[in-house]
């Protein structure tokens, strides 16, 4: 009984223990199970909890990741979505599970060419950025990565997909693209050329403008070496200058490049070095500006300034001409009157002759002298109005140019100061007469304008010319107002002027500086305020001797043989004068048209000399010459040209190329006679041409 009871109680306890064991097992409270045969504890807990932890970990990852995750079964039905994916799409997770994926991503899975299910069934992973629609209809850029899920036998059982919100990324890409587009537009539409070279000065990038500037296609120019464009006119080392940089240093210089077609283009270059992280130069970036037109304008400006100077002086020059002109006209009228009054008394030839001998020589001499003075003034004016083409220059006489300039400016000087000339004999210098004259005139005018009018006896302008070693120095000193120290650094700046608006362009000294620098000289200034200013031009002496040796040395006496002269000029006064002055010694035919002259020669008339005006309406002297060369070549050789100095470009080129003598108006009778004598000597001896 008791044993029964006991055993029954024990059984109950054992059953209760078994229940408790199972409950503990199920609730995971058991660490180990003891194998009753071996008494060996088998640890459960490690494996169990590791599995649980791993599961927890993956669940955590899946639910907290930034990516939306979902799985599809083989029939493309959604089997799982994480919270993130549901949020991205605007659904709750259980609204998506169990639905066909096409409900949510029709674009991605069914668009033509889109990575679809069949593709995935073959086992390919896909990654694609696509636009998807949320539940509320709003669009979102999403990066969707899909990969097939296969069972242990490799059979396709569904799809694992991950989705990232790509909108911000896409926006950033778009912003970057727009930014790049903006820079590209700036680079491509700028009027400056932009070029990037590598460390060996080969072009790695240019914009279209740079290529156009040099006449290439943008693609063809890549890889060319920068020295392939260098011209002989460029300063030496210019290609290297594009590279010789220290970090942060900017470099600006002028040079000229040779275009594809061989022409030159003047450029201004601003470049900056490019450096790698190690501080080594890895190339250079340069902005290249075409300044060809600017240079051309600059030289035109120089000519304009010269013309402006002459214009300023025009009143003074007119005055200079009017004085001798008055003397000339007056004396000629006086002579004319004398002739008229004695003409009535022709019976007394002796008395007439004596009266004329007594009254005429003096006024005649005065008239000639006055005319000579006018001739000098006109010569001076001509010097300043030379075309800008004669920039090359030759060996010129500084003193003669200074004399001309002083004569031009004399009207400005004489009311203000006494002129002191201190000229020592100096060598010639290589320069353009016109440009050097422009410099001198500017300096003299400045000196004169620094001195107020009316105290000429108290002031002086001293012009000194001397030579020290291989340099010729020209100093123009005045006792004028001087330049305040704060302005002295700016006197050579373009458009800097202290004169009132309308007086002077402010370009004079800037242009002088450029002209002097261009021919290898220096222009400097010293000034004491209230005491006066000295401008000093220092020029290298020429190694050449003067080429402009005086021509037309008259042959006294001559051959004594009468020659035959044809004179062609559209100016009737000149025709009559030349006929008169040559008729005593030679046979003269005077014609006012080139056509008549040509017709005469074509008929067989022959002359020792054809003295012809270069510029005439209808047929010019040049035309006549070329026509004669066809009709009567021997006569063409005998042409001598006269010119008033108003050259056209064609006339200048013609004279430079031809060997015909040319006399400049006004000329003296002796000059013409001398040339005529030479031509007569060339003619076959005996009675000359028929």
């Amino acid at each position, binding site marked *: 009984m008791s044993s029964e009871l006991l055993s029954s109680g024990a059984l109950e*306890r054992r059953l209760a*223990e078994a229940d*408790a*064991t199972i*409950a*503990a*097992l199920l*609730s*995971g*409270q*058991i*660490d*180990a*199970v*003891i194998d*009753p045969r071996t*008494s*060996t*504890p088998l*640890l459960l*807990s*490690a494996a169990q*909890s590791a599995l649980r932890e791993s599961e927890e970990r993956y669940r955590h990852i899946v639910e907290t990741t930034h990516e939306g995750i979902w799985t599809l079964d083989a029939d493309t039905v959604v089997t799982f979505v994480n919270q993130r994916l549901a949020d991205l799409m605007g659904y709750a997770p259980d609204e998506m599970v169990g639905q066909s994926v096409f409900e949510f991503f029709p674009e991605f899975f069914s668009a033509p060419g889109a990575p679809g299910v069949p593709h995935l069934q073959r086992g390919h992973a896909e990654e694609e950025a696509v636009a998807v629609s949320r539940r509320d209809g709003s669009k979102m850029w999403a990066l969707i990565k899909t990969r097939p899920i296969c069972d242990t036998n490799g059979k396709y059982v569904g799809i694992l997909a991950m989705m990232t919100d790509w909108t911000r990324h896409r926006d950033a890409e778009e912003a970057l693209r727009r930014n790049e587009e903006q820079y590209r537009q700036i680079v491509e539409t700028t009027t400056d050329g932009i070029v990037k070279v590598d460390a060996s000065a080969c072009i790695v990038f240019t914009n279209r403008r740079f290529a156009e500037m040099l006449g290439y296609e943008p693609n063809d120019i890549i890889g060319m070496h920068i020295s392939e464009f260098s011209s002989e006119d460029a300063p030496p080392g210019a290609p290297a200058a594009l590279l010789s940089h220290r970090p942060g240093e900017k470099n600006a210089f002028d040079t000229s490049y040779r275009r594809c077609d061989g022409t030159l283009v003047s450029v201004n270059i601003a470049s900056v070095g490019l450096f790698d992280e190690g501080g080594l130069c890895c190339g250079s970036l340069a902005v290249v500006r075409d300044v060809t037109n600017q240079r051309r304008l600059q030289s035109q400006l120089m000519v304009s300034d010269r013309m402006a100077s002459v214009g300023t002086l025009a009143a003074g020059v007119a005055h200079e001409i009017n004085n001798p002109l008055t003397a000339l006209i007056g004396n000629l009228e006086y002579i004319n009157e004398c002739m008229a009054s004695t003409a009535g008394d022709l019976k007394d030839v002796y008395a007439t002759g004596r009266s004329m001998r007594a009254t005429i020589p003096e006024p005649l001499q005065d008239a000639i002298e006055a005319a000579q003075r006018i001739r000098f003034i006109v010569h001076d004016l001509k010097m300043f109005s030379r075309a800008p083409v004669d920039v090359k220059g030759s060996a010129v006489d500084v003193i003669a140019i200074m004399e001309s300039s002083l004569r031009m400016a004399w009207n400005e000087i004489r009311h203000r100061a006494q002129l002191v000339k201190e000229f020592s004999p100096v060598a010639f210098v290589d320069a353009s007469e016109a440009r050097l004259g422009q410099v001198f005139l500017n300096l003299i005018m400045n000196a004169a304008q620094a001195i107020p009018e009316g105290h000429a006896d108290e002031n002086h302008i001293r012009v000194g010319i001397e030579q020290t070693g291989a340099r010729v120095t020209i100093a123009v000193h005045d006792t004028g107002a001087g330049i305040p120290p704060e302005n002295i650094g700016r006197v050579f700046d373009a458009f800097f002027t202290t004169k009132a608006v309308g007086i002077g362009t402010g370009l004079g000294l800037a242009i002088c500086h450029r002209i002097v620098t261009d021919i290898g000289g220096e222009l400097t200034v010293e000034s004491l305020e209230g005491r006066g200013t000295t401008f000093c031009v220092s020029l290298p002496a020429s190694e050449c001797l003067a080429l402009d040796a005086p021509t037309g040395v008259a042959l006294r006496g001559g051959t004594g043989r009468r020659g035959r002269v044809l004179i062609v000029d559209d100016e009737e006064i000149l025709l009559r004068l030349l006929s008169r002055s040559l008729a005593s010694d030679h046979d003269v035919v005077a014609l006012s048209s080139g056509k008549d002259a040509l017709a005469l020669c074509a008929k067989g008339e022959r002359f020792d000399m054809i003295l012809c005006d270069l510029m005439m309406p209808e047929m010019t002297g040049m035309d006549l010459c070329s026509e004669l060369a066809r009709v009567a070549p021997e006569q063409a050789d005998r042409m001598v040209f006269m010119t008033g100095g108003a050259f056209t470009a064609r006339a200048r080129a013609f004279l430079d190329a031809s060997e015909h003598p040319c006399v400049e108006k006004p000329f003296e009778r002796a000059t013409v006679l001398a040339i005529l004598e030479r031509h007569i000597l060339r003619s076959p001896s005996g009675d000359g041409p028929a």
Partner: protein
Amino acid sequence: MVTARRAEPRLHLRLYIAGNAPNSLLAVANAKSLCEEHFAERHVLEIVDLLEQPLRALADAIIVTPTLLKLAPLPAYRVIGNLNDRKQVLLTLSTNDE
């Protein structure tokens, strides 16, 4: 009071565990704190690590760890699990036939 204390029977417990397994550690901590709190100086708690002494499991027919044996006072009881349900455990331990 002295008499009463003397009259209190001594609680004898044996706890079977498996090394540092989590439930074993929990069971040790729970058993110790229960004894300290409710049976202060009148208990014996014997802890047997079966990883060190596997053969002792045989004597008490232990099949899982952690298992707590109440050896005295009678009736003898065994509690399976990590002893987290302290109320139930205390009730079991307080059962006294004597």
